[in-house]
């Protein structure tokens, strides 16, 4: 058309390749995320704690045969922080607090990663099925979800873990059973909302199959709240997991923050603050970091703020 001025004169530039287009999208997203200082603080905290978790075998001498068990030094009970060999002090059973914190980070990472991946996948599958197919299937699945939601999550998880017996694996299992319903709910609501868009009808008009429409039009546009929720849950699950192990539902002597806090609590009144404070601080920082990043992601990924960009 002659009356539309060409922005780029001469020869048309070559088309960008597909991965470059995608890279541009990701770069935009990253820039927007990093524009928020609190998100950056959260990210730095997360990277730091992930590094601690990943390099735990290098930072400490791993206990044998099971490095996830706290090593016991029966010759050094209740040592205060600063003691040579026990930088953050020891518990009343001779457990090294620093070792517990470092390997506890690894335990927490394992816990949150496993629980979040299981719950997100199951929740997205159930929510998608309910939201996309609708009708009776939706009705049945959502009533099941309602049943799960009617029990307070902590009590529910506690009950399951208690029935299964005290072990870390059972805590993972209990949390997975309790937490998937949230994702199912979010996903269903999101899909029902996205399904109303004209572009879903447009895809149908093109002649796409139902599965194809789900995969290219519905899922990619519905997934962002799940990503935000998963990030928040990375923190939340460690919090709930620490609560359960504090109560004593993990194996005794596990290098886990909740276990460590409970080991140290008896000494608090006697002035031995360190055994509880340091692991407690770690739980706090972990939950805070993921909350900061989760909130930052929500701001960036929320379609309302996206249109404003």
């Amino acid at each position, binding site marked *: *058309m002659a009356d*539309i001025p*060409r*922005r*780029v004169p001469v020869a*048309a*530039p*070559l*088309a*960008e390749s*597909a991965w470059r*287009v995608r890279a541009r*999208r990701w770069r935009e997203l990253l820039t927007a995320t990093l524009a928020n200082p609190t998100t950056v603080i959260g990210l730095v905290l997360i990277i730091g704690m992930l590094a601690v978790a990943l390099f735990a075998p290098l930072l400490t001498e791993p206990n044998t045969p099971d490095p996830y068990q706290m090593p016991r030094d029966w010759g050094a009970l209740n040592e205060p922080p600063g003691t040579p060999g026990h930088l953050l002090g020891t518990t009343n059973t001779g457990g090294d607090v620093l070792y517990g914190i470092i390997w506890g980070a690894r335990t927490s990472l394992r816990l949150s990663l496993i629980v979040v991946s299981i719950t997100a996948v199951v929740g997205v599958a159930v929510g998608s099925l309910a939201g996309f197919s609708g*009708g009776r299937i939706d009705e049945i699945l959502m009533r099941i979800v309602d049943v799960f939601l009617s029990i307070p999550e902590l009590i529910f998880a506690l009950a399951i873990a208690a029935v299964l017996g005290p072990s870390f694996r059972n805590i993972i299992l209990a949390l997975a059973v309790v937490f998937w319903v949230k994702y199912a709910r979010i996903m269903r609501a999101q899909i029902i909302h996205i399904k109303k*868009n*004209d*572009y879903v*009808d*447009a*895809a*149908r*008009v*093109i*002649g*796409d*199959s139902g599965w194809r429409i789900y995969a*290219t*039009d519905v899922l*990619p*546009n519905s997934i962002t709240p799940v990503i935000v929720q998963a990030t928040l849950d990375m923190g939340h699950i460690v919090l709930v997991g620490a609560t359960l192990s504090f109560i004593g539902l993990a194996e005794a002597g596990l290098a886990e923050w909740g276990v460590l806090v409970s080991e140290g609590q008896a000494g608090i009144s006697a002035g031995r603050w360190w055994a509880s404070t340091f692991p407690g601080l770690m739980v706090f920082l972990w939950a805070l970091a993921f909350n900061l990043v989760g909130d930052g992601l929500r701001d960036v990924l929320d*379609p309302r703020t*996206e*249109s404003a960009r």
Partner: protein
Amino acid sequence: MTPPRAPAADVIATVTDLRVHFRAKGGTVHAVDGVSFDIRDGETLGLVGETGCGKSVTARSFLRLVPMPPGIAAGGSIMFGPERVDLTTADDRTLRRIRGDRIAMIFQDPAKALNPALTVRDQIAEVFSEHRVPDVLARAGIGPATADGWLLRRRAARRARLPERFALALPPLRSRSAAIDRALDDMIADALAETQIPNPRKVMDRYPHELSGGMRQRVMISQALACNPALLIADEPTTALDVTVQARIIELIRDLQQRHDTAVLYISHDLSLVRWVCDRVAVMYAGRIVEAGPTAQVLADPQHPYTRGLLAAVPSATHRRGELVAIEGTVPELIDPPPSCRFAGRCAHAAPACRRRDPILAPVADGHEVACFLHHPPDDADADDLPTADWVAR
């Protein structure tokens, strides 16, 4: 149900006694209640009416886009193409083959009708992948039958999964796989150029939110016309656009339609627009067609009181200040309507006969049909019961 009428030779689609209802709280809403019309090859048929008159539901029935439930296919048929496929009963596979290939649709709001997560390239490639895989392969210079053809076919259909993509990126298939990508890009660029998008190769890599409203609408038209459909359904394609862009888009649709000999079903509430665009027009009111005929004739010599009211309500340059007349009242509730003329409640000429039974569509002149007792009084009615109007000689 009346049997489908015998089609004329050049008719692309025949709608017969279409009824689409919706289940609602107080009963059944008769959104489309016995609509019949033909669309001829290459013509533009306007479907005009107020919001809620059933024009969109009628159009969407062509592609079975009316959600059911709450919608109910209460009867009638839509016979499409020379093979007379009934779109209301066709199985999903038949329907999927027709959708996008032989019937396409342009939506009202391009901002909502393009997937925000896909680039323009991906949106348009989808049509070719669904309906034009042999063409893509031919354009890439690949014969139909080779041993590794299935992989390349999957590439052209953009259905290759991760391990398959890996195989396609390796030497024996690599060059042909790249040729397919180039061929697809060429076809997409051609489709975009068709709608006079400047610099199509650049636009291809844009996401919808990076384009202006007019550009988005052009992209959507490219997508709709990519497979050169026999019938294009345009559901108020310019309502969401600026007036200046509107004129260009309408020009574009008209131009493309004439070049490709596409029939267009043009849905609009805007009579002044229809005058420009459509060869024939059907005026809908409350789920029924009340008047249909050649656009020029219907607009110059409207016979139904509703059409006359609509025309009096359209502002134009020749109207003087204060001459516009709104039609009194609102569209009636369509929940379980009694047998009567749907317009009787708002009609200045309504007589007792109008409230007792339905008028049916019948010819008043060549190709011009009206459903009104002014023109076709029922045989058994008293003269006192019948409506009269100054423009109808009795």
